[in-house]
């Protein structure tokens, strides 16, 4: 406790003013002349007591105002000791990655961090998972290990983001998993004002088995059977057999012993029978469980569905090529139908024909269509197709010179090499996915309402171009079909902590592994992605009633509990600013807290109270004075 301007305390002497007003002046105040005091008796004690009761409140308030103002101008302050030993700010970083779920790693890390917090007095906490999250010290107790992948490289940027100019002492509580180290040591670099104290919570490599992956088809069409390949891996383990079991919708449907070589990998195939129509929740697990039980199971989903019809409207020649390509894949999820019937389709193909009126309405409601035109055509909500004729003679054709290879339809398409385009219809105003050498878009994309449209600026009949005769045609048709039907979008398996994208503007409802809504109603309308942070199944209900089941598993790099080399860790610890000597005396950081704003506020409150109380006393006193004056006037005194 101290004063920045102590000489202002002399103003406290002004408290003598209310003292004089209330005590000294009072004794001489308002004598009342009276005819005779013959019948009166002095009752000094009671009257003085009564007077004190009345006036001391006012006196106290007035004195308090003066004292508070004098104190406020003297600018009192007090100091608290903060931060850490050596006058540094302390940051407690806790690894919350999936590997910290092993045994008692997380409780050990938290108790060590709490002990450090008690020692330091004040600290900030960083939860180090896939990303680093800065939290206040009280949140330390509530920290839990997550299913996320840890990366020690996140620590440096997180500490730099704190923006401290003072020296920072980082205490990192982690299992220092080898797999958490970045590829480059340079990525571990810390800010220059930071020193690192490593606080390992795991001292030895612990053997761990894990289900590394389960490969199963995302969808089966027609059949109720699916084949799944389960890979089991041992990290630092002896050669041992593990029992692998397959659960289908919480029922055990298959299982057997699988010998796993020392620190090796083994795989086993299972046929899963009895798949139900719709979404099936599947799980591969190994037994017996080890100390990191979470990676002993692996979630995957299989959807069983009937092949979906695709409507082809247009020339029969093109239909032949398209059907051949579409149904070329084994267990194709599509069946091509020709005609103009209105109904429910995976998507609609309109090739060199006028689209029926219902097609665009169907697209607007969330459907999809592929328009293939080599001649002039006007398509509502899409635009006009303007024909360009190159000719079949000599070199009068065009080839594709640019493609958006990141688009799902053209992934690995390699510019459709050798494909010649003789007749092309240019569709303006759409997003081009592929262009010819003269810049004419030959494949474009557009969104119409909730649906999507692919515009192929040529025909599918093998005359306007020779694409159907090339090997690039089949993958193009299959990928276009998957894209238009929506089957190609979903990645049924995700790593914990990854973002799942949603279609902007299209409402989607997400249920987390506990069956709770992950997004509020408002978020469901506007969210473009969600964070799949936990292991389990996320159910996604998209517009149009489409449902998807996304299986989320922790990154299996977290299953490798091998500890990073001591040399590397020592080098990292020494790369920061030199740490304060552990045995040296603690130098407390003093933080100054000013009290004058509070004193001013109290003085104002006292002034308001004084005005209120004072407005009552003068009334009584004034009346008394008036009485005395009237008496004196009458008496001629």
């Amino acid at each position: 406790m101290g004063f920045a301007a102590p000489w202002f305390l002399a103003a406290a002497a002004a408290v003598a003013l209310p003292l004089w007003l209330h005590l000294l002046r009072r004794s001489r105040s308002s004598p009342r002349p009276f005819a005779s005091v013959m019948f009166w008796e002095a009752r000094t004690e009671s009257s003085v007591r009564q007077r004190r009761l009345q006036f001391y409140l006012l006196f106290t308030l007035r004195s308090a105002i003066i004292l508070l103002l004098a104190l406020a101008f003297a600018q009192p302050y007090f100091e608290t000791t903060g931060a850490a030993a050596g006058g540094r700010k302390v940051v407690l970083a806790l690894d919350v990655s999936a590997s910290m779920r092993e045994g008692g790693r997380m409780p050990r890390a938290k108790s060590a961090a709490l002990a450090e917090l008690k020692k330091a007095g004040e600290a900030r906490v960083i939860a180090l998972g896939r990303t680093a999250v800065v939290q206040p010290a009280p949140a330390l107790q509530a920290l839990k290990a997550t299913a996320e992948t840890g990366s020690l490289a996140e620590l440096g940027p997180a500490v730099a983001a704190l923006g401290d100019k003072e020296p920072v002492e980082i205490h990192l509580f982690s299992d220092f998993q080898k797999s958490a180290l970045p590829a480059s040591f340079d990525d571990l670099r810390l800010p220059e004002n930071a020193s690192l104290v490593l606080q390992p919570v795991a001292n030895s490599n612990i053997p761990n088995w894990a289900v590394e992956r389960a490969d199963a088809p995302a969808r089966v069409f027609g059949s109720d059977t699916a084949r799944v390949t389960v890979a089991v891996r041992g990290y630092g383990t002896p050669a041992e057999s593990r029992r692998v079991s397959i659960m289908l919708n919480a029922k055990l449907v298959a299982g057997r012993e699988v010998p796993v070589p020392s620190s090796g990998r083994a795989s086993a195939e299972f046929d899963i029978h009895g798949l139900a129509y719709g979404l099936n929740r599947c799980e591969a697990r190994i037994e017996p469980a080890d100390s990191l039980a979470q990676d002993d199971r692996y979630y995957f989903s299989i959807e069983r569905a009937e092949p979906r019809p695709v409507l082809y409207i247009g020339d029969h020649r093109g239909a032949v090529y398209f059907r051949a390509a579409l149904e070329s894949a084994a267990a194709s999820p599509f069946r091509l139908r020709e005609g103009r019937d209105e109904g429910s389709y995976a998507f609609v193909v309109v090739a060199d024909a006028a689209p029926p009126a219902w097609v665009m309405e169907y697209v607007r409601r969330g459907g999809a269509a592929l328009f293939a035109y080599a001649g002039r055509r006007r398509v509502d909500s899409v635009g006009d197709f303007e024909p360009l004729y190159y000719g079949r003679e000599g070199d009068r054709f065009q080839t594709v010179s640019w493609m958006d290879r990141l688009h799902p339809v053209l992934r690995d398409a390699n510019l459709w090499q050798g494909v010649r385009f003789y007749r092309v219809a240019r569709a303006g105003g759409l997003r081009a996915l592929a262009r010819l050498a003269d810049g004419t878009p030959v494949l474009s994309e557009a969104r119409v309402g909730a649906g999507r449209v692919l515009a192929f600026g040529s025909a599918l009949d093998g005359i306007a171009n020779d694409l159907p005769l090339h090997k690039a045609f089949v993958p193009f048709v299959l990928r276009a079909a998957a894209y238009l039907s929506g089957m190609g979008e979903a990645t049924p398996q995700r790593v914990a902590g990854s973002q799942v994208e949603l279609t902007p503007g299209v409402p989607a409802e997400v249920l987390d592994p506990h069956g709770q809504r992950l997004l509020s109603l408002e978020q469901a309308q506007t969210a473009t992605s969600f964070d799949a942070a936990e292991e389990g199944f996320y159910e996604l209900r998209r517009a149009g009633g489409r449902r998807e089941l996304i299986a989320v598993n922790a990154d299996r790099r977290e299953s490798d509990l091998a500890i990073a080399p001591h040399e590397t860790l020592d080098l990292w610890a020494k790369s920061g600013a030199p740490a304060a000597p552990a045995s040296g005396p603690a130098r407390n950081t003093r933080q100054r807290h000013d009290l004058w704003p509070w004193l001013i506020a109290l003085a104002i409150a006292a002034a308001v109270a004084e005005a209120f109380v004072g407005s009552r006393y003068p009334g009584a006193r004034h009346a008394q004075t008036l009485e005395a004056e009237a008496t004196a006037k009458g008496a001629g005194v």
Partner: protein
Amino acid sequence: MTQLRYLDPNVLAGISSLELVARTVVDGFIAGLHRSPDFGFSQEFAEYRAYSPGDDLRYVDWNVFARTERAYLKRYRGETNTQLTAMLDASASMAFGSGQVNKLEYARYLAASLCFLAQHQRDAAGLIVFDDEVRNYVHPSGRQGQLARLMHGLERATPGARTNYAKPFEHFLSFLHRRGMAAVISDFYAAPDEVIRTVEPLARRGTEVILFHLLDREELAPALRDPALLVDMETGEGIEVSPDFARREYRERIGAHTAALRQAAAEAGIDYVLIPTDKPLDDALREYLAVRQRRL
């Protein structure tokens, strides 16, 4: 009511001339008496008396003489001469008053009215103004100009020092040659025995004594909201008092004082009238007339 209104001391306070005050009071009082047959008045016809040599010819009833050719003097009751001496306490305590009129002013009005009434009945009237000394003495007389002297004496009466009843009464006894009436107007801040002991010799010598005890309403029932420092107007002594005391004990004490004074006066054959100064003057005048009638 109109006449009574002129007896209100607050109304009289607006009149500057003391004689006019007295005339107003008495006229109003007499007008009120016409409705009240309980009291006679000296101007009422009493008897006829045969003229004898030496009688004043002004009192001959010439109408009777015209009818009977005999001279008769018309006599009125009031013509039974007596004398009134108003003894006015002008001590400092008489200056106290909580309203428009303090006790001394009220006492002046009362004394002036009594003197005016006495003169009106052809009684001799005199005045003694005293505190601890005799400050002014107007010898009782019924002569022309006496009323003016009385009024002048009353107007000169100002608050003086402490009250001492012994001196003025000794003085009064030394000048008393005729039995008559003495009206003592005071606040009687003294022990009742002392007051009566001083006044009693007068009564024993045949003088009808009336004690007019004037007290302000604030003296009878003081209203204190807060503790106060009271200063005695005679002694200058200050005393800090509480509202509780004023509410209970003081009222009991002043009540006991007036009761003791009334009792002692009655035992000594002295009339006693307690008059709060916010009351009209007619009570005092009635008392005077009652006592005078008793003397006739």
